[in-house]
């Protein structure tokens, strides 16, 4: 059972999509099938969490030959790091299906199913070609969802995100191929397994170049400042479920990539880039925060806010001390929960008001108190309100930053301050103040409350009782990567 469980989690949605597609399932069956597959994966993931041994390192491994001539294997496995992301994906998908329950366009559902397979596969693969496969294929559903179901300049923006991301992927592919070749040269056999490639000795110069290939892909995905031009347009154009996945999962995958493959393959060389990345991350922190303050479109505003926080996570990873690492890993989870909730709220806002422009909102608090509560809660989580998970995580990263250098510490602490600034100002203008339209606004429905409550509960749990979660993560963090 355990041997196949990860593969089942990866491929269940894809198989469901193929099955439904071949059946030419009517909409109702399609919805039921998608929800069924997401709930089944969630159950499987719960099973994985129960069986997970925090001290066990990489587990649930499965190795199968795939393309033997080129030494490409199908190998998947799971450790604390991937467990965090896997849990997030499995948790968010049913909630997103609940969110889009009324969606009648079939392609939407198929894309979500494919997307789940893509992101899950990328999190679990331990073979670089396999990882590359999932890394690329998860882009396709996003491409279609933005381009077909998005708004604004959707065609242009979807093309932009695809081209920029693939530029990064291609540079990563080059590095992967070169490492495979070096392995071939030293051992006489081709292999692209993470553990095989980690054993090879690289000269400093080539190692620096190869690292750059990987880092470019991850920097674009995160995105670090300078590689971010796709971000705001894509977030602005994408439909809500796609935004949630992009911000909660895909951006995190960039960080995950640095962790898994950056540290896994080039532990030493990565330090060569530490000053560059830390500088970019610090600039990003401030730059994105300023852009978020001035932004009027809520989706774009939280795109920038997401960029700012991901820069903080990237910073934490490169600081390489246990506080910053722990904080980053924790922040991956809590920020994903908070931003998923926030983007869902923005989606709900759009459904209610047909606008996500701050200037056209206002005075919601009097009319829709439950809406206001959830909206404000998620916004404050993003700002790092004490008592929520984000606070714990940010605090850990900032402590880590102070440990490494006073200046970095001060600068990274500005994220919390600037986030407070734009969040509170935004809340003031959207929820309070004078209303711009006199029509009655429906408060949150039961379905919407059901969809948001798990996120709220988890955010509170992670904030109040971190001790529930830390034991899962600690052994691996102490063991280093």
């Amino acid at each position, binding site marked *: 059972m355990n041997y196949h469980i990860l593969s089942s989690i990866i491929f269940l949605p894809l198989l469901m999509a193929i099955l439904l597609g071949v059946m030419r399932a009517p909409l109702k069956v399609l919805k039921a099938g998608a929800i069924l597959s997401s709930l089944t994966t969630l159950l499987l993931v719960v099973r994985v969490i129960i069986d997970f041994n925090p001290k066990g390192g990489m587990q649930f491994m499965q190795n*199968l*030959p*795939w*393309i*033997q*001539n*080129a030494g490409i294997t*199908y190998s998947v496995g799971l450790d604390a790091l991937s467990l965090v992301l896997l849990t997030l994906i499995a948790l968010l998908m049913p909630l997103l299906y609940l969110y889009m329950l009324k969606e009648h366009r079939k392609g939407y559902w198929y894309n979500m199913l494919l997307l789940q397979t893509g992101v899950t596969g990328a999190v679990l693969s331990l073979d670089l*070609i396999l990882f*590359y*496969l999932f890394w*690329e*294929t998860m882009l*396709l559903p996003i*491409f*279609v969802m933005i*381009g*077909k179901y998005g708004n604004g300049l*959707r*065609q242009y923006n*979807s*093309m932009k995100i*695809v*081209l920029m991301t*693939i*530029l990064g992927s*291609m*540079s990563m*592919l*080059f590095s992967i*191929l*070169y490492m*495979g*070749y070096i392995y*071939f040269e030293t051992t006489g056999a*081709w292999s692209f397994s993470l553990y095989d490639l980690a054993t090879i000795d690289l000269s400093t110069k080539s190692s620096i170049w190869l690292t750059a290939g990987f880092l470019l892909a991850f920097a674009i995905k995160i995105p670090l400042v300078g590689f971010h031009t796709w971000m705001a347009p894509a977030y602005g154009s994408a439909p809500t479920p796609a935004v949630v996945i992009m911000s909660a999962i895909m951006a995190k995958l960039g960080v995950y990539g640095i962790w898994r493959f950056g540290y896994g393959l080039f532990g030493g060389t990565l330090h060569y880039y530490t000053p560059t990345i830390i500088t970019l991350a610090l600039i990003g922190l401030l730059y994105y925060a300023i852009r978020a303050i001035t932004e009027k479109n809520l989706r774009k505003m939280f795109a920038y806010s997401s960029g700012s926080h991901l820069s903080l996570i990237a910073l934490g990873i490169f600081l390489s001390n246990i506080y910053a690492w722990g904080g980053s890993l924790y922040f991956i989870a809590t920020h994903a929960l908070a931003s998923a909730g926030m983007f869902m709220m923005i989606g709900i806002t759009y459904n209610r008001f047909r606008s996500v422009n701050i200037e056209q909102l206002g005075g919601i608090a009097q009319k829709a108190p439950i809406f206001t509560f959830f909206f404000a809660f998620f916004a404050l989580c993003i700002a790092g309100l004490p008592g929520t998970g984000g606070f714990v995580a940010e605090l850990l990263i900032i402590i880590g930053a102070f440990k490494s250098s006073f200046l970095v510490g001060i600068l990274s602490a500005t994220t919390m301050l600037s986030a407070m600034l734009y969040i509170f100002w935004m809340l003031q203008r959207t929820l309070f103040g004078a209303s711009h339209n006199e029509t009655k606004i429906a408060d949150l429905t039961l379905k919407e409350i059901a969809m948001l409550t798990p996120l709220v509960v988890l955010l509170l749990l992670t904030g109040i009782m971190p001790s529930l979660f830390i034991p899962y993560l600690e052994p691996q963090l102490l063991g280093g990567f």
Partner: protein
Amino acid sequence: MILTLLPALPFLSILLGAFVLMLLSHKKSISLESFNVTALFFLTLALFFELITFGLHSGDYLYPSIFKNFFIFDEFAAIFDVMFLIGTIFTLLVNSDYLKSRNYFSGEYFALLLFSLFGMLMLSHAHELLTAFIALEIASLSVYALVGYHKSKKVSSEAMMKYMVLGSLAGVFFILGTALIYALVGSTTLESIALYLHNAEEKDITLLVVGGSFLMVTILFKIGAVPFHSWVVDVYHGAPYPITMYMASTFKIAIFAIALRLYLVDFATINSFWLEMLQIVTILTLIGGSFLAISQTLVKRMLAGSSIVHSGYLLIGLSSIGLGSDIAAPAIMFYLIAYFLSAVGSFGILSFIASQSRRQMSYDDFKGFANRRPYMALMMTIFMLSLAGFPSTIGFLGKFYIFSAAIESGQILLAGLGIFTAFVSVYYYFKLIAMMYFYESQTDKQKSFPLNVSTLSIALIALLVIWGGIGTSLLSFIPGADGFIDLAKQAINSL
């Protein structure tokens, strides 16, 4: 005695078929479908002979007492034969709708197609330069005629003139090269050339190098490498869809059959002379092809431009062979299979659409295609992804092997450039996907998926493209991604 004829049966049956079709073609009473079926019968017959004799006659020559060592039978040639035959079968199957929709097709079309196929089959078996030239010209002349097949259409005639004049000029170089080699070696069989080179320690081999370069000019012209590319886009555009498909897939493979045989066996020892020239041509081809493909507005012309880029990838493989990469030759063969499938598929869909309407098929005409024909759009997407080298398709593995070979042979920058042009190609392939899916349709829905020979064979190719990319060795009874490359390796080893 008669048994030695056995391996020759495939191309004899094609020749017979060509004559039969030619003789029948003056009869107006015979319908196109009957011609189609007749041609398919001979093709299947040839494929059958090819498969039962596969690997039985490795290294044999055809009637050495009569033909000397002009024709060789080995697995290398056999695999190429199979590819040509399957390519022609697909050309006929996929385009059966298109043939019906145009009134200018008649029996000669099938005869010409089989004649050109006969030329290609000879080409893959040719073990002597003049034989190779004759085979090449048999194939080319038929293709020239086919390109200009739509006589009343100006573009078609222009394309034919352009192709024929330039193609004949390029063919002359082959003869000149052969003459120069003959002047030095005193023979034109590949064996004696290889033998001469083997013993030519301190001898002057300038003539051979010059002759070999001339041969290469012809080869580069035929595959449309820059700077011999000026005909490609116009000719592909002017030719009827079935012929464009045939040229882009099958005919291009035939050229690589002879190129691989020449440069793997014949000139193996002096490959390094051409290395720099080849590398420069490769760089030009990759960049020039990308520019051509980006700037097109008609999808057919874009595919023509991109076929130049694909030639560039194949040339990367060729120069890797020159640098002694072991995996380069199988990589080229695998890439040929991969490109062949994707090209046949994508041109097949174009020809299917063309059979339904008379549009020029610019990018704009594809707007809302996914609404009109969801399955067709899905398959077109698969082919575009494969051409772009997106993982989980066979096109990705093709590029994977080519770039690995380039890196293995130390051509890091060339591999980098290849990967970069692959990135550029994402733009013009994804643009088509975007057009199909992201825009509303101007015309009504045509939901039903017409189940006929054309569409079913396109669907089969689409499945092959996916299976070739992800097929695992777990299902050992179906050859997957591994099976293709094993086949390619076997072919190269038989040389």
